[in-house]
């Protein structure tokens, strides 16, 4: 069988224009996939653009916006708003603290502390952490309403459940990444495992742990503000109430209170970070 020698191209290869769609071009396939996904999404959803863009609903939204921009500021309403804001703040703080404790407790079995550590519980604990983490706060709140009833307790526990999944995973990474030297030095002297953790591993990881906890607190105040929408207390509950009665001026005040709270927590967390870094 005669060997087929490739014939030289009429012009050199590098002069050929690249083909527009190449079967081996990964980017082309990706773009095509994204386009198909987008088209299918718009096609399969019964989106009511007519209703959204009708004069009536546009006018309604303009009226809403105008009313939201003039928040209710009478004393009687503010007396109701302040406790709700404090409740939201308390939910975020308590939820985060509970999550720090639970996250730390779960991070220990979820991490391989040293070379010889069999870490039998690493896989199962990580699975649990992933499950806790992948259910959002609001879903936890809706689930916990059955056990804890309406009110801030359900919200607090929901924040704690989701956040302990997130923090547990981050804490475990921190503990595993801590330098092994000090822990090894203590361990070869026969210091028990608990003290090795307290005197060698935790002090190294602590700044990072605190910074993660502060970051989650910033997230949790945002989540706590809206958790009340399903009945878990705080500003969200007020928001859902006034919105359902179309009292947009009150809704505007609640929104403003949410934004102020978020700003306060961000500032406090920033100050704490600065103080810790010094």
């Amino acid at each position, binding site marked *: 069988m005669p060997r087929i020698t490739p014939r030289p191209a009429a012009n050199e290869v590098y002069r050929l224009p690249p083909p527009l769609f190449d079967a081996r071009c990964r980017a082309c396939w990706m773009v095509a996939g994204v386009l198909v996904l987008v088209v299918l999404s718009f096609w399969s959803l019964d989106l009511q653009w007519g209703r959204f863009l009708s004069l009536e609903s546009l006018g309604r939204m303009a009226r*809403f916006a105008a009313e939201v921009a003039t928040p209710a500021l009478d004393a009687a309403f503010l007396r109701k708003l302040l406790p709700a804001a404090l409740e939201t703040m*308390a939910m975020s*703080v308590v939820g985060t603290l509970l999550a720090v404790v639970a996250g730390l407790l779960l991070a220990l079995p979820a991490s391989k502390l040293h070379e010889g550590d069999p870490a039998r519980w690493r896989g199962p604990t990580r699975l649990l952490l*992933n499950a806790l983490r992948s259910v959002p706060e609001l879903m936890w709140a*809706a689930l916990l309403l059955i056990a804890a009833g309406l009110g801030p307790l359900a919200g607090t526990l929901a924040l704690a459940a989701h956040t302990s999944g997130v923090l547990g995973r981050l804490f475990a990474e921190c503990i595993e990444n801590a330098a092994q030297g000090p822990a090894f030095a203590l361990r070869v002297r026969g210091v028990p495992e608990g003290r090795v953790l307290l005197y060698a591993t935790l002090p190294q990881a602590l700044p990072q742990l605190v910074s993660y906890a502060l970051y989650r607190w910033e997230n949790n105040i945002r989540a706590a503000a809206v958790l009340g929408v399903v009945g878990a207390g705080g500003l969200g509950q007020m928001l859902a109430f006034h919105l359902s009665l179309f009292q947009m001026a009150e809704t505007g005040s609640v929104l403003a209170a949410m934004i102020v709270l978020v700003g306060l927590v961000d500032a406090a967390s920033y100050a704490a970070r600065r103080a810790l870094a010094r």
Partner: protein
Amino acid sequence: MSAVLPRQPARRDPAWARRVFWLLAAGAVLWPMLVLAEFKPWLLLAPESLEPTLRFLAGFVPPRLDGEFLALVARETWRTVAIATAGLTLALLLALPLTLLAVRSLSISGLTGRMAALPAALRLAVRALLVVLRSVPELVWALVFVRVVGLGATAGVLAIALTYAGMLGKVYAEILESGEAHPTETLLRNGAGRLQAFFYGSLPQNAGELTSYTVYRWECAIRSSAVLGFVGAGGLGQQMDSSMKMFNGGEVSTMLLVFVLLVAATDRLSAWLRRTLA
């Protein structure tokens, strides 16, 4: 020598008083927080709340797995993904012009060192709009749109579109400004238009990072579109909400399982895509 050195090292922790003070201070701050958050975990164990909880949890096994229900869950899962995709597409369309207006490095009058008054004011206004769009939580947007366009996917798509437009616009502008400014500036100085400078100077070097951030946001949008269902914006969340209200544990456990798998799958997909892009 023995007169200089203390005979024995301090037996007590020298920082004892300080530690006790901070512990008490933390307790004094935390106590009202616990009261405000109505943190009474023993209520969970009260028989009147424990019994329905246990009954609900007992319903979790076995999860409901008949064909009719699974088909429903599959349809709702697709709707959740579709709402996220459609919302993110609209957010992208909204964010791109806002980004181009907000980016400083594409300013022609800025080449002289200080931007002219009118463009500077426009930039400030666009940035303020982006702040407003993202500081209102998507759940609140969804609540408003549910009241304007009625229950269903439209409200979810619009809510995701508005909030994510704010986030994308801000981060896109930051990415474009943190990139190498030289090519863009050279193009602008040599008479290229702003769009030309963007397409040939800023976009090529930042395209990977921009796409990777967009993919990450898509992953977040899927989670939040499931959550938006709880206020009536369609998808898996809405179905889960109605099953919870009917205390149907089997249906809830199936949907939770599907949701966790969906989150894990998108997590993997987005990690893979971002690795490929990098």
